[in-house]
């Protein structure tokens, strides 16, 4: 992570503390304090117009005791696992091609850049851009109608699980490609030559050398994709057309109804689930070397 420090020199000992202070203050005030507040408010009581400082467990009882919550968590987890599997299946070959099969460094940089540019453009616009394809009169329906596969346009293309998962994959595959590519670039090429010299075929090289050494990158990508999908509400709202449920959407609905303590309890549960998922990934793969 960081290089070992040199001792001595004219740099005052307090300097690194001063340099790190702004980051610590900002994250303390805008991450730790708000999350602490979420936990506190999750024990508050509320009525239809205001929140009442108190210590009650009713919010958690309502969250954990409702069948809707469990179904919503199950549905969100389903999205997360599907998107994770697809982004891995798509992202791995993309990263592998970039890392091992692009010969010139300039080309590699250009193609890597091409993969990351969409990350710096608007997610909402990228979701909207599926309308011409998935809409009732969109390209897919026209093509299927034209080919005689269907005789009425499919309504279920947009506003469906399919659209939600498609949009997630579209938005988040980058988060898998970049860490996997980084891990692959660190693989010593001589290991691959050695494997080939020892008689390994292309698939054996990938299975026995590339995958094990790229695992930390896969783990980081997996953590990104899983947490982004688990906490999402905008993609599910836009692509699901209000008919699909997710935990983030449930929280945002509670906020819209000003049920802040209920939303907070839900948020705390979501955070716990996300941390459990990350813990599960880290149990399988040790990523410390990568950081």
């Amino acid at each position, binding site marked *: 992570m960081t290089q070992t420090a040199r001792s001595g020199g004219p740099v005052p000992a307090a300097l690194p503390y001063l340099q790190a202070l702004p*980051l610590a203050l900002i994250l303390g005030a805008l991450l730790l304090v708000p999350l602490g507040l979420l936990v506190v408010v999750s024990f508050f009581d509320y009525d239809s117009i205001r929140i009442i400082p108190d210590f009650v467990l009713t919010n958690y009882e309502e969250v954990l005791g409702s069948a809707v919550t469990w179904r919503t968590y199950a549905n969100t987890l389903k999205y997360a696992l599907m998107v994770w599997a697809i982004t891995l299946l798509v992202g791995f070959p993309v990263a592998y091609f970039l890392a091992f099969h692009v010969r010139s460094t300039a080309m590699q940089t250009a193609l890597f850049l091409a993969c990351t540019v969409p990350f710096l453009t608007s997610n909402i616009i990228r979701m909207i851009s599926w309308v011409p394809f998935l809409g009732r009169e969109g390209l897919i329906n026209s093509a299927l109608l034209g080919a005689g596969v269907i005789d009425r346009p499919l309504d279920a293309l947009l506003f469906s699980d399919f659209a939600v998962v498609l949009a997630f994959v579209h938005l988040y595959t980058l988060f898998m490609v970049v860490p996997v590519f980084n891990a692959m670039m660190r693989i010593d090429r001589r290991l691959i030559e050695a494997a080939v010299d020892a008689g390994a075929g292309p698939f054996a090289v990938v299975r026995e050398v590339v995958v094990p050494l790229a695992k930390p990158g896969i783990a980081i990508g997996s953590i990104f994709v899983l947490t982004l999908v688990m906490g999402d509400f905008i993609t599910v709202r836009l692509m699901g057309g209000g008919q699909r449920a997710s935990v983030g959407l449930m929280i945002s609905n509670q906020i819209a109804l000003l049920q802040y303590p209920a939303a907070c309890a839900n948020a705390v549960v979501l955070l716990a689930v996300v941390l459990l998922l990350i813990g599960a990934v880290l149990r399988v793969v040790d990523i410390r070397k990568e950081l």
Partner: protein
Amino acid sequence: MRRALLAGFFGLFLLFLYGPTLTIMLLSFQGPEGGLTFPLRGTSLHWFGRLFQRQSVGDFGAALTRSLALGAMVMAATVAVSVSAGLAFRRHFRGAGALFQLTVASLIVPSILVSLGIGLLFSQAGLDATWWNAAFGAQLTWTLPFGLLIMFAVFNRFDRAWEEAARDLGASPWQGFRHVVLPIIAPSVVGVALFGFSLSYDEFARTLLTAGSANTLPLEIYGMTTNVTSPVLYALGTVTTGVSLVAIAVALGLMRWLRRRTG
């Protein structure tokens, strides 16, 4: 053969990434009879004109101005704080591990929790959350981790010999930073700036509950998705993607120029 297959797959991936956005860009240049789907009905700048008229659905110009201003603020803060913290992490200091974990946590905590937490913090403190205070802070929790990770990547490859040479020649720490370290890391600092601006400019979830009543552009776009069903939406997509692409192009050009200058 295998390489050709992989290259083909990669090509399809790029098509998947860019195809839809290019499609709505194309559809935004339709004539006044145009709709949300193909076929293209004529070509004109009609929908861009409509975009810049003050509309009943919202105020695109004001939202764009706010988003650009906020993007510039977040960019400046992200650069200053990330570079400073990046310098700190080159030495050992107590709490370095904890601060690093906190930064990674900032990346992983779902956006809606940050948004809700900061929104509550402001309302409990009796402050009005607006785009330039609460939303500005909420966006920093998203841009700073990226900024710091970029700085880590830079300083991991950084050759300290240059700095030591400057010190041996009598440079003060500040002179060493200003005349030796900064010129070397400058291209990456531009990268941090690009991330700071772009991630802020497109940020939605962390801004939603923290921007108060005045919308930033992504919030405005989100509002439009529910009640605008004309190519105005696509024209908006073309304009806002254009702004992002210009930012990326400017940053890349600047990085190239800086690299050439330092050789």
